[in-house]
């Protein structure tokens, strides 16, 4: 048995309840108080087949405001929950392609609204498919549930550019989760991805490079046990549990994955995701970069 095939509860996570296995999902498919939410990069994947009963939350259409470069407001969020039959007592389980990039991103956005009853399916969509489990093309309809939520609170889990500048002033810890080439500034985009318009290559001064994928097993996409995660971030980024940490990537999706690992699996209390990330910082007038 490899370490990553350890049961989730045996991996030493600070909050193991935020992660569920594909077995758990299979056993809880028909529970009315559990809502599976698929979030993908590929816009056709959900419709081509999803876990039975799952709804889709699309990162561009459903999580972002259509006109302002920002996330949903409170009313839009309540409407999103309502149309997917998610109520105050619903447990939401996110999963998706790309090793749960967009699932973690959706989890993070839900978290900004104080939605705490959320989990991620370890290994994502691909693990489910590789295990030969059932997929369905039926799009479920759920009854809207009355809900009330406070306004989105960006203060604890989201960093804006001014927050990052203040963070730099106090020599705060930063993790750049992009590829080593992006971090070094030798390329302005992910390997095999086009340039999406950053004017300069490099990283935010002082940031350490820990590519997001190091947090998962290359075999099945499941998260590494806590001891391995801890040593990864301690050794490569000099991060301790007591540190105030900002994570970033290119647009904030890969760093949501790392934010999830640090904040929820390791239980580090002060971790913020800078979703403006390199597409903002790499173009900002007057801010320093490092190569």
């Amino acid at each position: 048995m490899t370490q990553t095939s350890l049961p989730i509860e045996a991996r030493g996570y600070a909050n193991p309840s935020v992660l569920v296995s594909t077995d758990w999902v299979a056993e809880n498919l028909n529970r009315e108080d559990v809502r599976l939410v698929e979030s993908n990069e590929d816009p056709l994947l959900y419709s081509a087949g999803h876990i039975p009963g799952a709804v889709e939350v699309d990162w561009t259409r459903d999580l972002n405001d259509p006109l302002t470069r920002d996330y949903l407001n409170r009313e839009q969020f309540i409407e999103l929950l309502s149309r997917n039959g998610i109520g105050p007592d619903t447990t939401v389980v996110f999963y998706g392609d790309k090793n749960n990039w967009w699932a973690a991103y959706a989890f993070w956005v839900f978290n900004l609204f104080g939605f705490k009853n959320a989990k991620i399916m370890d290994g994502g969509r691909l693990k489910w498919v590789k295990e030969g489990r059932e997929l369905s093309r039926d799009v479920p309809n759920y009854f809207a549930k009355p809900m009330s939520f406070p306004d989105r609170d960006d203060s604890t889990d989201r960093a804006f550019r001014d927050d990052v500048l203040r963070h730099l002033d106090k020599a705060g810890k930063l993790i750049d989760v992009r590829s080593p080439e992006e971090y070094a500034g030798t390329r302005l985009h992910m390997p095999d991805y086009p340039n999406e318009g950053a004017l300069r290559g490099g990283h935010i001064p002082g940031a350490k490079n820990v590519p997001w994928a190091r947090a998962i097993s290359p075999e099945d996409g499941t998260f590494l046990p806590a001891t391995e995660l801890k040593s990864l971030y301690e050794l490569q980024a000099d991060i301790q549990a007591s540190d105030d940490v900002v994570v970033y990537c290119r647009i904030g999706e890969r760093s949501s994955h790392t934010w999830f690992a640090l904040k929820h699996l390791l239980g580090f209390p002060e971790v913020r995701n800078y979703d403006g990330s390199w597409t903002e910082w790499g173009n900002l007038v007057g801010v320093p970069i490092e190569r």
Partner: protein
Amino acid sequence: MSLPGPLQEILDDLKLFPSRAERIDALIGWGDEFVNPGADQLPRDEFRKVPGCESEVFVMSEADGEGRRYLFAVDNPQGISAMALARILQVGLNGLPDAEVQKVPDDIIFEIFGNELSMGKSLGLTGMVRMTKIESAKRNSV
């Protein structure tokens, strides 16, 4: 610039679907029609591989009338968009002269799939269109 007739017809049909969900269903229908050839029909050589495409797509072509017949392999079972595009390019371009195929703009993928494609997905799909055009030009160079 006008598109080759058969390809234009496919785009026109897609435009008839009023909602995103129906359009996606139509695209999945195209993907369902796709048949993945074996390695004996389309060898998975590195030079046939579409760069930047996570769906493990390979392209080759054979002479077919005035044009070429395009073969695509999509080896990632999750590559639904790639399968749909492969089938659309086959139906829209097979047998057409190179000059017609060269009219196809690389960014036609946004007309097919919409503007919400992520950059990773758009790169892979654009690569498929480019590789098809390169294959099309082979007729003149053989």
